[in-house]
């Protein structure tokens, strides 16, 4: 069949018919022959406690960032297919962010090292472990015999737990200094300030205990510290509705946290300190407003509000120039207003951030490398060749080191410069521990056998030490696992008892090795004196972070929560600035700083100051896998500038922006940022709330003949179902088939429904990645996946520019106000997926009955019936149906979205859709069927809230609730009756099963009384 398809290319239509006419006989005879032969491969010896086709769940620890959240890894037939948050874990309490979800794509990354690699003739070539061990031992011996051990450098990706101390011990046994615990994505400036003021690196911020939060560029919802627990606390605080805290965001650019703020003080970069001084009364408001370039009356309102609010919580981020003073001022304000002990809880500190080295330490190492003083460099997990600003010259300095070893599991910019690669297991393949909160160990266990011929670095170290007579006696343990078990209270039995829960009381081994003092820092110049026309605001991408997510297609394709852009690096610019410069969306510009230059398209963004441009980090890798090549590297633009604690000041310079000529289509998933009076994402001022309880009685509307009821209808069967004919269409029968609530199948007794609380939703998009993982959704944005026909529609994101993204759930982001370009605008986030309409517009237009309404309330898409007319998508008012333009699931096609071994992740419960088929949110029907089967197997009815959809399970703000709206015992039925409940496009009589609860707005107390 495929041969015919290739023949059909490039021939005339008439010839095509002839060819097909002749080909049918051949093809028909092929069609009658037996299908291709498949094998059924049994186990050699059946493993204990597993049943083929039934998932096993392993509790383990996420290493996606420093927070060390708890994971439940779902593993079936030996392959991990889904990660969920561990509900018992003290950090993430069952939720999981997009970065954590995407750890699976690190595990199954097609660009992982398949074996050790040794540089031969300038190229890394595959080698055997024995050979690699021999080389590493030799080089270690050489370094020691030449007296170079004391100058060796080991850079480890920062992690919590016993391994850092174990590594330090090993290094000291070989005469080497303590390792540098590096994490480019963490705000080390803030850590230093927290430690000085509160005694811990990262206290828990209890947002429920405050009335006002003032954030100076502290993006606590998107990357400033542990996003998941902070989102959980934030959402809980906002869910208090009338008693919820207001959030004031101070900064030059509104991040996701900034968009969630009720008020934005758009101060110039580097002048945040003036606002802080105005709050403390050290500086008159008028002078501060003048210095920051903001409206004095707006600042005055915030200052007044701050004075009235007790306690208020002041947070500050450390990536802007002059952050040290700002952070100190924030701590002083918190001391003064009584936030410590109430809103700031050092006693519930998150220990994952303890012990991170400042990037200045790494820069000091670069200086030593440059002077030829480093004979051996070892890097594990971290990628400093990318994530240190280019101006530090890390990659060039590496060339001066005679021997470089990488323990990286996936190829990255640093490992590709090394001479020896000893690939580490992924965290889901190895043993470990973390101490995320004091006194609690979070265990890390392998959820599956290693994908490739890798070896845990801990075990590599042990094996090397065993081979050396001087250290062999000390490293008598068979492997790291047994060393770890010996540390757990109760030993092997204690470990076995603790593993199912994933946590156990205990403490990780502490690092005792001496660490170098902070080197002299590279001072930040006064930002106002740097050359350039516009301030340059470089920030960490919310999901790609410091670049570690760049080779995970889920994260590349996940629209940035703020800009809704995928696969591309853009220059964010205020619309009025662009107007002045004669620029528009997608025009290419060149941004130049003293450190370097970068060309990227312009993206017009309302949430940025007119004298500032912003660029996200994370993209534009040189050598970190096939997907990581997308975009440009913002670190190229960052000059060498450090704040007082040695943290990189990402915002430290101005830049000149020139028109490059030409344009590049933006790979956006957004249609319009405005609602155009459609009332999709609704909000209600806090003053208008009834205080919970029943739905406010609405005035009786005029009744029109044939008009449907305007009452809320989730929980009731749809009008379509009422008309359904059972008994196979026999017109004389009264049997409505399974649509009859009294039918023996009991199917119509349930009505699956969902509520989404917009007062909780932060727009973080964790649900989107969870949905990709659960439902085998292909990513389509890689440049080889697009048809190479139109020259302006090529490159990364090309398919997205043609609206071919497949995200079953998307985060819509709408602005209210700010049409004149002012900073006073509100943002509303609304997750949008198939609404499972009771009266669905898609259903009657399908000519082949591929989409229909199931008796239990689902709008079902039957892939094998679908012939791809796309009528349903045309008729869907919510635009939530997605079409497979190419064979994303077919390995022989260039558009294949799951190159080996990414396909190992595919959920076996969900069909991988073929080319030409429509697909959409199924409300995780496989989970519904799975739960029904399980209940039947255990001979019991479904328990209320027994299971939920993938989006709801991951949601770190707990905004999504799924359940049976026809059964009062499910939580969803209570939420549907909330006074804030509404249906999107209710006027279309679609009777949706997804019910939204209005966002609650918290206007400034100084503002006019809410316009009712």
């Amino acid at each position, binding site marked *: *069949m495929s041969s015919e398809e290739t023949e059909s290319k490039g021939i005339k239509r*008439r010839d095509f*018919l002839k060819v*097909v*006419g002749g080909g*049918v006989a051949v*093809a*028909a005879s092929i*069609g*009658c022959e*037996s*299908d291709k*032969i*498949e*094998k*059924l*491969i*049994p*186990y*050699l*010896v*059946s493993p204990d406690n597993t*049943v*083929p*086709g*039934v998932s096993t769940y392993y509790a383990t620890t996420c290493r996606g960032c420093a927070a060390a959240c708890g994971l439940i890894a779902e593993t079936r037939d030996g392959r991990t297919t889904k990660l969920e948050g561990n509900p018992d874990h003290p950090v993430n309490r069952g939720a999981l962010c997009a970065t954590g979800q995407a750890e699976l794509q690190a595990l199954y990354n097609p660009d992982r090292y398949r074996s050790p690699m040794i540089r031969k003739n300038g190229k890394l070539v595959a080698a055997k472990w024995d050979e690699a061990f021999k080389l590493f031992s030799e080089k270690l011996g050489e370094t020691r015999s030449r007296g170079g051990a004391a100058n060796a450098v080991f850079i480890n990706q920062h992690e919590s737990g016993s391994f850092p101390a174990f590594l330090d011990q090993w290094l000291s046994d070989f005469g080497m200094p303590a390792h540098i615990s590096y994490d480019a994505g963490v705000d080390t400036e803030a850590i230093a300030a927290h430690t000085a003021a509160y005694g811990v690196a990262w206290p828990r911020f209890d947002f429920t205990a405050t009335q006002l939060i003032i954030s100076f560029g502290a993006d606590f919802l998107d990357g400033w510290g542990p996003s998941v627990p902070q989102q959980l606390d934030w959402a809980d605080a906002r869910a208090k509705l009338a008693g919820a805290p207001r959030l004031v965001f101070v900064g030059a650019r509104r991040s996701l946290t900034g968009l969630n703020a009720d008020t934005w003080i758009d101060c110039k970069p580097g002048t945040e300190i003036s606002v802080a001084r105005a709050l403390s009364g050290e500086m008159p408001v008028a002078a501060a407003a003048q210095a920051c370039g903001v409206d004095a009356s707006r600042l005055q309102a915030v200052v007044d509000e701050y004075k009235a609010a007790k306690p208020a919580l002041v947070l500050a981020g450390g990536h802007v120039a002059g952050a040290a003073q700002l952070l100190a001022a924030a701590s002083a304000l918190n001391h003064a207003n009584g936030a410590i002990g109430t809103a700031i809880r050092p006693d519930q500190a998150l220990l994952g951030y303890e012990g991170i080295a400042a990037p200045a330490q790494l820069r000091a190492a670069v200086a030593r490398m440059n002077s030829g003083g480093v004979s051996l460099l070892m890097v594990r997990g971290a990628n400093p060749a990318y994530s240190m600003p280019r101006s530090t010259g890390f990659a060039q300095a590496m060339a001066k080191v005679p021997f470089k070893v990488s323990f990286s599991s996936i190829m990255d910019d640093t490992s590709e410069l090394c001479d020896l690669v000893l690939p580490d297991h992924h965290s889901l393949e190895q043993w470990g521990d973390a101490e995320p909160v004091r006194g609690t160990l979070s265990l890390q266990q392998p959820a599956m056998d290693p994908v490739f011929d890798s070896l845990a670095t801990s075990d590599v170290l042990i094996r090397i030490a065993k081979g050396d007579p001087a250290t062999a006696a000390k490293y008598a343990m068979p492997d790291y696992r047994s060393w770890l078990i010996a540390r757990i209270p109760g030993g092997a039995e204690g470990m076995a008892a603790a593993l199912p829960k994933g946590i156990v009381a205990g403490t990780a081994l502490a690092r005792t090795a001496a660490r170098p003092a902070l080197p002299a820092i590279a001072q930040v110049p006064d930002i106002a004196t740097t050359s350039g026309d516009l301030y340059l605001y470089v920030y960490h991408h919310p999901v790609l972070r410091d670049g570690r997510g760049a080779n995970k297609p889920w994260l590349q394709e996940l629209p940035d929560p703020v800009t809704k852009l995928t696969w591309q690096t853009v220059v964010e610019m205020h619309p009025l600035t662009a107007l002045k410069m004669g620029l528009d969306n997608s025009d290419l510009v060149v941004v130049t700083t003293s450190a370097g230059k970068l060309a990227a398209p312009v993206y017009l963004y309302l949430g940025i100051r007119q004298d500032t441009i912003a660029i996200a980090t994370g993209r534009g890798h040189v050598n970190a896998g096939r997907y990581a090549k997308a975009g440009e590297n913002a670190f190229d633009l960052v000059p060498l500038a450090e704040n007082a604690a040695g943290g990189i000041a990402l915002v430290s310079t101005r830049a000149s922006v020139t028109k490059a000529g030409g344009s590049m289509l933006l790979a956006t998933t957004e249609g319009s940022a405005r609602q155009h009076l459609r009332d999709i994402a609704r909000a209600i001022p806090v003053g208008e709330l009834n205080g919970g309880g029943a739905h406010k009685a609405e005035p009786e509307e005029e009744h029109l003949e044939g008009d449907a009821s305007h009452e809320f209808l989730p929980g009731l069967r749809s009008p379509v179902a009422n008309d359904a004919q059972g008994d196979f269409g026999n017109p004389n029968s009264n049997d409505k088939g*399974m649509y009859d609530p009294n039918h*023996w*199948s009991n*199917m119509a007794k349930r009505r699956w429904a969902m509520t989404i609380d917009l007062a909780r939703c932060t727009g973080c998009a964790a649900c989107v990645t969870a949905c990709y993982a659960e439902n085998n959704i292909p990513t389509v944005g890689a440049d080889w996946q697009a048809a190479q026909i139109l020259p302006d529609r090529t490159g990364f994101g090309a398919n997205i520019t043609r609206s071919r993204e497949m995200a079953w759930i998307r985060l819509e982001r709408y602005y209210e106000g700010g049409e004149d370009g002012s900073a006073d605008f509100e943002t509303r986030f609304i997750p949008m997926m198939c609404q499972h309409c009771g009266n669905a517009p898609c259903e009657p237009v399908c000519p082949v009955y591929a989409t*229909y309404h*199931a*008796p*239990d309330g*689902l709008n*079902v898409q*039957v*892939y*094998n*019936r679908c012939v791809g007319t796309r009528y349903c998508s045309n008729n869907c008012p919510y635009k939530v149906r997605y079409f497979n333009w190419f064979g994303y699931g077919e390995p022989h096609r260039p558009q294949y979205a799951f190159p080996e071994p990414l396909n190992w992740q595919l959920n076996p*419960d*969900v*069909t*991988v859709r073929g080319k030409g088929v429509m697909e959409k949110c*199924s409300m995780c*029907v*496989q989970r519904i*069927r799975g739960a029904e*089967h399980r209940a*039947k*197997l255990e001979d019991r009815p479904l328990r209320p809230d027994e299971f939920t959809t993938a989006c709801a399970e991951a949601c770190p703000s707990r905004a999504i609730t799924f359940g049976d709206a026809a059964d009062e015992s499910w939580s969803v039925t209570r939420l549907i009756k909330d006074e804030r409940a509404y249906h999107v496009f209710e006027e279309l009589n679609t009777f949706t099963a997804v019910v939204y609860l209005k966002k609650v707005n918290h206007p400034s107390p100084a503002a006019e009384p809410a316009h009712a």
Partner: protein
Amino acid sequence: MNVFTKPSVSLAFNYDSRMALRRKWLTVSGFIAIAAVATMLSAFSGASTSQGFSPVQPVRFPHPLHVQTLKMNCLYCHFSANKSPDPGMPAVATCMGCHALVGTDKPEIKKLAAYWNKKQPVPWVRMHKVPEYVHFPHMSHVNAGVSCQTCHGPIQNMNQVYQYSSLNMGWCVSCHIGQSNPPFKARYDCAACHY
């Protein structure tokens, strides 16, 4: 066919009749070709059947001997058929549990032992397969009292297993709507199996 290809007088009024004739011919052959392609595609989509398929397996496992003579329960080997969507193929260790001692001189057992000694699983040829877009949970059927034979036929008599049922959708549905003997009833909604 003639009816459709007769040149139309009314068309000749507007067009050169030969042109019209050619267009008609093209249209008709086009439709036939499309219909044929659709038929072909549907054949590939899994609507065809491999009923009666009976491949030679790498080890000739005789069901009658094990089931009838030795009275072994199906679930002894297909151990997860009542608790998993997957019926479970016996691990080689399960076979060797007996055949380390029993029948070691027989040629087929020698083949089995060879796999075991090489630490290789037996590469059984898969026979019963529904398309990927169909979900068939064994446990729900087994626990509802559907016997193995209902779908797999007189498997206890098959020295070489063959596919007894068509496994087509019509065959599934006939049982789900209660037209089988003995009658079973189950949900016949599309999304009961297709998702």
